[in-house]
């Protein structure tokens, strides 16, 4: 058990076995990718070298990596909060899109507001929408014991379709070829923190949330209750923890952060909401949360690695004839092997 999973604060120890376990999925992915590359007549080492350079070589590349890492870090935090409490919430993918749309809508409607206020309003709207959205499955689980895996999974699809409907309908930018909303007013954009790269304030916000998460996890009563409930719900009930209330609080926070994540992504990167807004950020965040064992450091590292993968992949495509899909292959394989030995999480869960 690492420091992250035991209770009250204690000094962390470097756990070599855990480190090896954390690196294994990447090793497997690299091998699988190498086989694919070699089978199609390429030099895997050269490709990986290129990706490494594109991911981390130089300031602008690092900035691009961090930009790509930001939404993943956000969604990882959002998911980890639920997981801590033993709630297998897979709905962050859905609220990410909803929050993004909500933030974008605020951004092109509330154009009268001046800069910092507009940004705050957009983020707040995203968080509000996300929090409310996940309150529903929270209530279903808390009051009716409906499995949250099923309910949040279904809601993901409802959310995505809802945003599609809205962006193709009422929120469609006039004269737009592909389905997209109007651009967010310039006053509503998250400022860049390392021009000319696209790294925005969103990254800093994500880092701040990560720090808050670490504090919440170890040093607050709610974090303590969440952890107890996640580890042993019968025990936490017997000592007086109000599980329905806890579930509601935790899921709403999860949803709020997920919605905030989407909004920040819209404000900082895309500056509008388009179809295909989320290439699975919620799912990647989920994998990162599990890989990082819900710990702050683990999630940060995981998010950066996946961000590097995504960012390097896009640029590698420009320099070579390697299809972008290699990134998906690598990412998918890492995801599968990263959650090895987490089967226990679903012990006793019977979906419907």
């Amino acid at each position, binding site marked *: 058990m690492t420091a992250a999973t035991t209770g009250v604060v204690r000094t962390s120890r470097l756990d070599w076995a855990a480190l090896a376990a954390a690196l294994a999925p990447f090793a497997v992915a690299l091998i699988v990718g190498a086989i694919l590359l070699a089978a199609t007549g390429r030099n895997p080492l050269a490709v990986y070298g290129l990706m490494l350079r594109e991911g981390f070589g130089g300031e602008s590349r690092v900035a691009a990596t961090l930009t790509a890492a930001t939404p993943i870090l956000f969604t990882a935090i959002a998911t980890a909060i639920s997981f801590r409490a033993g709630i297998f919430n897979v709905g962050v993918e859905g609220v990410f899109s909803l929050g993004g749309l909500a933030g974008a809508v605020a951004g092109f409607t509330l154009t009268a507001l001046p800069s910092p206020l507009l940004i705050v309003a957009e983020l707040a709207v995203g968080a509000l929408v996300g929090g409310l959205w996940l309150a529903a499955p929270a209530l279903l689980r808390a009051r009716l014991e409906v499995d949250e895996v099923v309910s949040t999974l279904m809601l993901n699809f409802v959310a995505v379709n809802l945003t599609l409907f809205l962006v193709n309908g009422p929120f469609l930018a006039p004269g737009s070829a592909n389905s997209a909303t109007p651009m967010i007013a310039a006053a509503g954009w998250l400022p860049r923190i390392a021009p000319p790269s696209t790294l925005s304030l969103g990254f800093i916000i994500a880092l701040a949330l990560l720090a808050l998460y670490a504090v919440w996890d170890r040093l607050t009563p709610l974090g303590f209750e969440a952890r107890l409930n996640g580890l042993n719900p019968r025990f936490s009930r017997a000592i007086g923890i109000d599980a329905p209330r806890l579930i509601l609080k935790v899921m709403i926070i999860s949803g709020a952060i997920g919605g905030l994540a989407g909004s920040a992504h819209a404000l900082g990167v895309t500056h509008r909401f388009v179809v295909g807004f989320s290439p699975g950020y919620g799912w990647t965040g989920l994998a990162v949360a599990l890989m990082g064992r819900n710990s702050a450091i683990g999630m940060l590292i995981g998010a950066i690695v996946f961000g590097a993968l995504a960012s390097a992949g896009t640029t590698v495509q420009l320099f070579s004839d390697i299809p972008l899909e290699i990134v998906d292959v690598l990412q998918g394989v890492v995801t599968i092997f990263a*959650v090895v030995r*987490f089967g226990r999480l679903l012990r006793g869960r019977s979906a419907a």
Partner: protein
Amino acid sequence: MIDNVLAAAALLTTPILLAAIGGLINRLGGIVNLGLEAMMLTGAYVALAASSATQSWPLALAAALVAGGVVGYVFSLAVTRLQANEIVAGVGLNVAAAGLIGFVLKDYYHSSGTIRLPDVVMLPRIVIPGVAQIPIVGAILSGKDPLTWLSWALVPITAFVLSRTRAGLRLRAAGAAPEAARALGLDPLAIRDASTAVAGALAGLAGAQLSIGVVGVFSVGISGGRAFIALAAFYFGRNRPGLTAAGAALFGLFDAIQIYLQGRGVAPELMQMLPYIVVLVVLTAIGLGERRRRLWQGA
């Protein structure tokens, strides 16, 4: 008009039903399989390629079945032997498989969208003379491909196998109480892997129905999330083959209606949401019913 919609619905239900039955069998064996999408996609591609190469649709179906089964089996090993979290691993599988197939499409076929292969033999449509003329029934029964008939047949067959055969009993035991199964000399992990292979095979067939049963081409988006609709049908059916089939049929009908309404002023996305909303409504209703039955279980 109704006939057209029903005829379409019957065809659209098939891949959902096949995958949903696979998901059901898998769930009884103990795994919630979110990777059905990957298996469906694999089956769709393999069926098209095999049909083009051999000019034989039975061979193509066999190939799709095997391909889906293999993907299922390998995925299952990661879950049972390496204890991967089945939900996340399923999602990862979808991403990886879509990535792999997309890679092959771009690299080998030099296409970034759809591929058309030469000499593809499609699944035959079986017209039943006499029945075909009957309104509604004719639309549903006549002019369907062999896989559609298979999917309907599988419903009672699955129900029978589950409740009355040794394989079904061992499957249910392995899924519900693996420790007890092991104590009796069974191998619950092997049984689980087998159930996933079956699910993968059925999902592969579902994919085949899409590529060589309906459209005749392949694209990475061919399944269009149908595997998740199948999942919704399986949640709707709550581990019972009959109910699952009803759910699949309902969602197939939604799909057909949605296509029919396209261009007639109703947004497709709203219809596409329906299966998932239906599942939520059903689960809520069940939850309410259970709660009333439970009474003062403790806050």
